[in-house]
């Protein structure tokens, strides 16, 4: 295998494997938030605020995978 094909395969693997965890994580975050809203609809404003912060932190991990994918591909 030459270096170019190794780079392509590893880029695909990095992004593909890297988004599994954050995918599950965002699902858990949103599931928790929706349950909380279901139990206490009055507090939905605060819950949604914190949900977005949680999603942002979780999603950042997927973004790191994407960044590393780009670094592998273009360096």
């Amino acid at each position, binding site marked *: 295998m030459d270096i170019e094909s190794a780079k392509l395969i590893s880029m695909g693997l990095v992004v593909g494997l890297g988004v599994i965890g954050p995918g599950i994580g965002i699902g858990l975050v949103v599931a928790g938030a929706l349950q909380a809203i279901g139990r206490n609809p009055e507090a939905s404003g605060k819950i949604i605020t914190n949900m*977005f*912060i949680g999603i*942002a932190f979780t*999603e*950042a991990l997927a*973004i790191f995978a994407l*960044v590393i994918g780009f670094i592998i591909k273009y360096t």
Partner: protein
Amino acid sequence: MHEGISIHLAPLALFHIGTISVTNTFLTALTVSILLILFAFFATRALTLKPSGFQAILELLITYPYDFVRDTLGNDRLAERMFPVIMTIFLFVLSVNWFGLLPFVASIGIHASVQGISEFIPFFYPGATDLNMTLALAIIAFFTIEIAGIVTLGALKYAGKFITFKSPLAFVVGIIELISELVRLISFSFRLFGNIFAGKVLVLVIMLFVPMILPVPFLAFETFVGFIQAAIFALLTLFFTKIAIELHEEEHSSPVPSGEKVHLTI
């Protein structure tokens, strides 16, 4: 890339001014900025104290986000200062994203040679597919957040959030917070870039396979994604500002805020 579909990570340069290349994404962002400025100028020219029709709609569109910002920050003076920045980010990102979905974008252009290969260069291309633009917005958001924190808490107190010698654990947590503060630059810029770029590639691929009816739901989805990403960018700026202006010391003297108590008695 192979025949029929051309995907570029870097934006294509339309022409050069000196050593600065004017790219199609830059032209899009510039056009959107000019349109927004013109809209703001003409929409606010004939304001009356008693709003009617068009002005009432505009006021509703501005007051609702303003109330949200004020409620989130819980500080009227800071909300007055932060709201223009946050709303500008939202409006600019939203306009750039939606402008990128218009029919003439990425379809009218010129043929020019890029690195020796003849390539089709559109005049307009979705602005957020250029990392330069999203990184610029991320830097603006980053400095807005940091300056809001420093102005509200004072430089020493704000630095104390990150570098503390109270306990070894607090020190480590502070270092981690400092890193996560800097990492926001990457996550902010790549979130917007990744979403819009992936959306553009998705639409291009769908258009290559089924050019007639199938792209419509995907374009509708892209409209939604464009709005959501604009909202996320603005909301995260707001929430991180809220985190920056708060001192996270253990202040559990009043577990139930006074507002909640009033609410419970009703």
